């Protein structure tokens, strides 16, 4: 079984390597390798679920006295669940891509990058220690970079890729410092050993800081405020990529990691920080989503918001209970639960959006769509299922997982609970808005008028994804709490009614006119980007400019050229003694001698 575990990890790498080494010349072979690899990984993951309780295996990567880094696989409930999500959703998206990307000239490169991404993601999932996780964390970052910037000739895509990578790096900075702190505190980076040590150590305050720093990593990957700015821009990548990376897997990595190392932050002040950051992110992103017009961006903000949910609930913690099957902690379990369901329905939504975009010739503005219901029935229905799941309409998967979160929030923190409910209302609101505007009414552009249903290579994955989106919730169904049930149903109802009231038959968004500055704020994403832009231009660039000037003028100029110049000047001055006049020489001779005499005899 160890071999199988390694294969899960390595197959995508091999595929990516082979594509890179030359298989790229043939589209079919590249795609075959890539899809084969991820599918095999999926099947192997399923067999893991079936056959293995837990499994640990490792090989050494770097060992120096006092320092030992392994590449190790840790297969337990948590990682098995995540494996299935990643490879399962991944497989479907690979297949979807076949259709979506079939005309692209860099088709092979695309699949090579996809495989690389799957490899990196699986590395995070399987990692059994911090360093390995960090390694794959970075790799995920870079493969995401490559995929976002896949259409690198488009300046916006190239910039978005850069932005994503750098924002992630800021998070990783904290992550790495956190790892260093953990290492120095507990002399280990291995999760299992840490779990043992942490209980022994009584350095809560400091480990809280370590935990928070590690959370910074999650903040980057899972796009929590204030590092969330990259995710909407990342929609510049091909839509399947958005579905895979920016909805189902990569962004979930932060949540996954938090669940993995929850023991580190448990009981420390870091928990509260995590919870509030998550909650605020959820609220803020939901608000932003309300005023977006780009179909993918709406979904992106919705993703942000849902991730905020998950992070929040991780931070809330909740009770330990064996009932909770995966991690044993209510909050993390809820988070993982929502992560799983979200992965399915959000991937499906993105693929649906992709299908729409494909059909509309890469038109992404929802106000230029409309009336797609009749022209793209399969997409329509699956999108509807996804929307219901996301909104938490009862009996859809999202309903159960969201409820699990609300339960925990209700128990642990009423303010956050209220926020969560508001977010739920907003979620329904903006999803309804999207749905109504894009799929119902009349077509508002030529593209939308002539849109056709996508080919089956794209719709079949959609249909397949619809199944778990509908039913994934039942695997972890609990006795519903009446208050929570009420709250969540009301949220859905209110959200739906508001949206319907506003957007039914609307040709353009009426909100800006009504709410003015507030709507603008939402549309402009609360000016986060502008703020960062300002920081980059005024702080970062100026700092660099000052250093550059210091380097150019102070060190290279004043110091180096100064020394050089003054040396030469000294030479020119000194040789003025050589007047060519003999008597001056005689005078120098005498004067020098007097000096020597005085020096030596006194």
């Amino acid at each position, binding site marked *: 079984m160890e071999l199988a575990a390694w294969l899960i990890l390595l197959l995508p790498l091999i595929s990516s390597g082979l594509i890179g080494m030359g298989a790229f010349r043939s589209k079919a072979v590249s795609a075959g390798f890539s899809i084969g690899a991820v599918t095999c990984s999926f099947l192997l993951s399923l067999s893991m679920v079936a056959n293995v309780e837990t499994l640990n295996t490792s090989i050494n990567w770097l060992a120096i006295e006092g320092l030992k880094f392994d590449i190790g696989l840790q297969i337990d409930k948590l990682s098995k669940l995540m494996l299935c999500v990643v490879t399962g959703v991944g497989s479907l998206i690979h297949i979807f891509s076949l259709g979506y990307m079939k005309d692209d000239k860099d088709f092979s490169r695309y699949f090579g990058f996809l495989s690389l991404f799957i490899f990196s993601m699986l590395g995070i999932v399987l990692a059994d220690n911090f360093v390995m996780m960090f390694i794959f964390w970075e790799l995920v970052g870079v493969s995401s970079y490559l995929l976002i910037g896949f259409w690198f000739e488009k300046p916006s895509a190239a910039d978005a890729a850069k932005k994503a990578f750098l924002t992630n790096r800021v998070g990783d900075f904290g992550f790495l410092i956190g790892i260093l702190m953990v290492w120095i505190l507990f002399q280990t980076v291995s999760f299992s050993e840490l779990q043992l040590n942490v209980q022994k150590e009584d350095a809560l305050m400091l480990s809280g800081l370590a935990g928070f720093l590690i959370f910074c990593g999650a903040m980057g990957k899972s796009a929590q405020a204030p590092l969330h700015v990259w995710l909407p821009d990342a929609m510049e990548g091909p839509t399947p990529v958005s579905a895979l990376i920016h909805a189902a897997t990569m962004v979930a990595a932060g949540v996954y990691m938090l669940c993995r190392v929850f023991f580190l932050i448990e009981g420390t002040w870091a928990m509260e920080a995590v919870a509030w950051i998550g909650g605020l992110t959820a609220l803020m992103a939901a608000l932003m989503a309300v005023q977006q017009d780009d179909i993918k961006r709406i979904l992106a903000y919705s993703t942000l918001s849902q991730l905020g949910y998950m992070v929040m609930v991780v931070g809330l913690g909740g009770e330990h209970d064996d009932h909770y099957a995966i991690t044993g902690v209510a909050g993390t379990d809820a988070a993982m639960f929502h992560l799983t369901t979200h992965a399915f329905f959000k991937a499906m939504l993105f693929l649906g959006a992709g299908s729409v975009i494909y059909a509309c010739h890469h038109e992404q503005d929802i106000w230029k769509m409309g009336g797609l219901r009749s022209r793209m029935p399969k997409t329509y229905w699956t999108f509807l299922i996804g929307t219901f799941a996301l909104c938490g309409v009862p009996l859809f998967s999202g309903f159960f997982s969201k409820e699990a979160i609300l339960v925990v929030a209700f128990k642990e923190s009423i303010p956050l609970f209220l926020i969560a409910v508001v977010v739920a209302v907003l979620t329904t609101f903006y999803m309804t808005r999207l749905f109504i505007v894009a799929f119902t009414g009349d077509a508002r552009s030529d593209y939308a008028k002539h849109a056709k249903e996508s080919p089956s290579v794209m719709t079949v994955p959609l249909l397949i994804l619809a199944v778990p989106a509908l039913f994934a919730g039942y695997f972890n169904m609990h006795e519903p709490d009446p208050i929570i049930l009420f709250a969540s149903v009301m949220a859905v109802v209110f959200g739906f009614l508001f949206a319907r009231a506003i957007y039914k038959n609307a040709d353009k968004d009426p909100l800006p006119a009504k709410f003015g500055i507030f709507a603008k704020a939402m549309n402009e994403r609360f000016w986060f980007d502008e703020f960062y832009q300002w920081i980059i231009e005024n702080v970062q660039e100026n700092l660099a400019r000052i250093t550059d000037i210091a380097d150019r003028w102070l060190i290279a100029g004043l110091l180096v050229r100064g020394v050089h110049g003054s040396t030469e000047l000294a030479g020119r001055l000194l040789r003025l003694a050589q007047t060519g006049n003999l008597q001056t020489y005689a005078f120098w001779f*005498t004067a020098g001698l007097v000096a020597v005499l005085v020096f030596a005899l006194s």
Partner: protein
Amino acid sequence: METILFNIFALLAVLSALLVVVNPLSRNPVTSAMFLVTTMISISGLFVLLNAYFLAAVQILVYAGAVMVLFLFVIMLLDVEETARRKLRLVSLTMGFLSVAALFGVYKSSLEATYVKDVDSSQDIATADEIDGFWSEYYAAATSVGESESLVTVGSTQALGKELFSSVNGFILPFEIVSILLLVAMIGVILLSKKDTK
């Protein structure tokens, strides 16, 4: 007697040397040359006082005779007329004078440091006080070395000859080298001063 002669010769030497270098009356090199002759002669007088009779003779022969003749000859040959008084370079003059004065000052002070060390313990303090200050400091330093018996022999030409040529003393080697030097100088002078054939 010796003292009087010494004073005369010394004064003469210094005065005429000064006149060689800074003659307010004449800027003609010939005048300088003439005063140089006077200096040489005074110096040879000093030599006599120091019992170096042979050297005194050589001094007059070589310097006052040969070298000065050479000088005059060249002056005549070049027919250098009286050099026009150029503008005095006051700064360089002062600098030169100061540096030389400083040199002389250091020299004088080191002479004092060496020879006037025990002026206080000297018996002739009273006498020292009486006489002119400039010389007085040196009076006490009358070293006794000079009073040795060899004084007479020191001056003799015979002794000098023996010193020069005896194989024990080893001065024969430098002497021979000097002869080479003269040869070189001779040829050199010919080469430098002859007119180009081409």
